[in-house]
């Protein structure tokens, strides 16, 4: 490596009792869920009482941790080795989490009103950002319960890692937004002059929305917001609280990336953003890296030798194996360049590599192996 990043010491993080939350972020499909589960398992096997909050895990992985249904509560994972520690795992159910917030804060009648509201139903199951908000909410709940000394959080599949930080705020802003206030309670809006201006606009706006959406939708929104208002103070404020939790010193962000241009670029944005937000970055995990134990045999030499054998019409098998190796070395070199690119922009960010396994990671043995590789 021409530029090498400092090594990321995973075990030091896992063994430090001050580490209370580990957040695994990254762009879509890079291995966030796998990494989170592997870290949870490793932490438990090193003696910690850990819970891992997964979001949309692959079916077989979920089953291997004993998660057969989406019941939104942590379940104890059996077959955890080592003494003293234990692992619980759960899958996030965003709708249920949302429902539970409502149920916890409203009297039964009002809760019922909200839960059956069509606007609430579409918001809680399909608003982009709800999943992220609820992941943060759940994290907050787990933390407040005090039942675990380490919480490992996976983040929702999304194109951009930044969504995890931005989406909750978006939902909060939307629900607490000016427009929703104006539309739903024109009479309650602040000072007199503002009231006048807004009210003039209100007629037009409400008229247009009624036309396009139908009167019922507006009524649903109105009911939803007034019912919600009465039960607790602001979604935004709630999101802010969890946000602060993420800035606390006991939190460690791990950015997971694949050694590809797009994913490394996303990782770069995310690292910069964490710095801006003063959120504690532990390091970057580059997942599914291709390595070779025959490093000394370069792609060029390997191809040339294959060509030579092919020309002579000898050792077909060896020629094919050399081609395979050449392709792998080429891939490895490309991946290396992407990582160096990142490191030259962020020379102080610790990094760990996890090799690409030939098969999916879908059982505890696989997770254990990933954990070991992460730590080595």
């Amino acid at each position, binding site marked *: 490596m021409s530029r090498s990043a400092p090594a990321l010491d995973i075990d030091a993080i896992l063994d430090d009792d001050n580490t209370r939350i580990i957040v695994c972020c990254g762009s879509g499909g890079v291995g966030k869920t796998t990494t989170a589960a592997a870290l949870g398992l490793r932490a438990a096997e090193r003696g910690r009482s850990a819970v891992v909050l997964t979001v949309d895990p692959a079916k077989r992985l979920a089953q291997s941790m004993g998660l057969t249904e989406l019941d939104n509560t942590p379940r104890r994972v059996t077959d955890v080795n080592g003494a003293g520690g234990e692992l619980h795992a759960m899958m996030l159910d965003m709708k249920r989490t949302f429902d539970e917030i409502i149920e916890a804060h409203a009297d039964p009648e009002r809760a019922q009103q909200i839960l059956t509201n069509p606007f609430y139903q579409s918001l809680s199951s399909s608003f982009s950002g709800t999943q992220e908000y609820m992941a943060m909410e759940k994290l907050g709940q787990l933390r407040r319960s005090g039942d675990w000394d380490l919480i490992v959080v996976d983040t929702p599949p999304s194109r951009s890692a930044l969504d995890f930080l931005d989406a909750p705020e978006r939902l909060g802003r939307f629900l607490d937004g000016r427009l929703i206030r104006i539309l739903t309670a024109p009479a309650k809006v602040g000072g007199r002059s503002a009231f006048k201006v807004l009210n003039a606009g209100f007629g037009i706006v409400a008229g247009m929305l009624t036309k396009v959406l139908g009167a019922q939708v507006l009524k649903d929104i109105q009911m939803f917001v007034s019912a919600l208002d009465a039960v607790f103070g602001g979604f935004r404020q709630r999101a802010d609280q969890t946000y602060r939790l993420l800035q606390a010193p006991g939190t460690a962000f791990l950015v997971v990336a694949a050694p590809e241009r797009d994913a490394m670029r996303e990782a770069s944005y995310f690292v910069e953003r964490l710095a801006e937000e003063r959120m504690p970055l532990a390091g970057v995990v580059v997942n599914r890296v291709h390595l070779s134990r025959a490093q000394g045999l370069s792609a060029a030499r390997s191809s040339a*030798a294959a060509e030579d054998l092919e020309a002579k019409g000898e050792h077909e098998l060896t020629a094919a194996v050399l081609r*395979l190796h050449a392709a792998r070395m080429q891939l490895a070199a490309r991946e290396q360049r992407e990582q160096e690119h990142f490191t030259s922009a962020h020379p102080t960010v610790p990094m760990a590599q996890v090799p690409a396994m030939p098969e999916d990671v879908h059982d505890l043995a696989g997770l254990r192996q990933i954990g070991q590789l992460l730590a080595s």
Partner: protein
Amino acid sequence: MGSLRNVGAETARDIDWDGVRLHVVSGKGGTGKTTVAAALALALAAGGRKVLLMEVEGRQGIAQIFDLPPLPYEERKIAVAPGGGDVYALALDPEEALLEYLEMFYGIKRMGKALTKMGVVDFATTIAPGLRDVLVTGKASEAVRRRDKSGDRVYDAIVMDAPPTGRIARFLNVTQEVAGLARVGPVRNHADMVRGVVASPDTAVHFVTLLEEMPVQETLDGIAELRTAKLPVGGIFINMVRPVVLPGPVLDAAYHNRFDHSELMLGLKAAGLADGKADASKVAEALAQEVSEHARRTELEKRERLSLEAAGVPCYDLPLLPDGADLAGLYELAEAIRKQGAA
């Protein structure tokens, strides 16, 4: 098909999606939806046709892939297909589509602009996700049905770079989605028009996948969901397929840990890659390890392919492009799509 140009040259080919005018391309995030949609548009346009490539998520993915500056909300020609033929592109923006819609049905474009400034348009499309979708699919359906003054179809086909698998059934199931919004009126009529197109044989919903567990599972779930919603399932594009470089029996042996090192050692020596016995055996061992991993990967891919095939729809292979999906790569993929009869 009267409006198709070069009919003579094309009738000889047997194409799986003959008669389909709207190709919707979905798939798990990052599997290559945008890339495959673009290649499919090129393939469909080949030989003198006119195809519209649409993206719906406001991400300017088409511009990126064709190496163009950001596209405006306007249909414009962006590429020439092999053998002549034009690909037009449209980067759809739900806000613009809503304004257009307001103007069309209510004649209130100017006010629409004011509403945009206030954030009302964004608000409306946000509180009613169904509204956003019906505007987008409405635009596609309109393009499918559009005819010029002489009554000929303007486009031979529309290709849509669609939302990912998890959202595709809901996205296309517009009447269901806006049912809560509007029981009567223009939105409802619009939704019915869309349903008339997307649920008809004019449409095919394709999936892009990789030979990996999660994208395959999502593809199968997506297909089941579409079938339940009575929406037309198209084909499966298996993307980033790597060539098999080793003969079957070798892979088989390696998979079962019976790979023969001695032959490899002899070969390495013959190629001058090993100085002395110890070295040859070390290199051979390392390479054998790579062979074994490759064999396991190939086996997994074989399994995933079998479960895809069980879905009972045509599957097409698209090669992994060693230099990534650049412009030349798109044409290569388009060629592969045509060779396999998907276009």
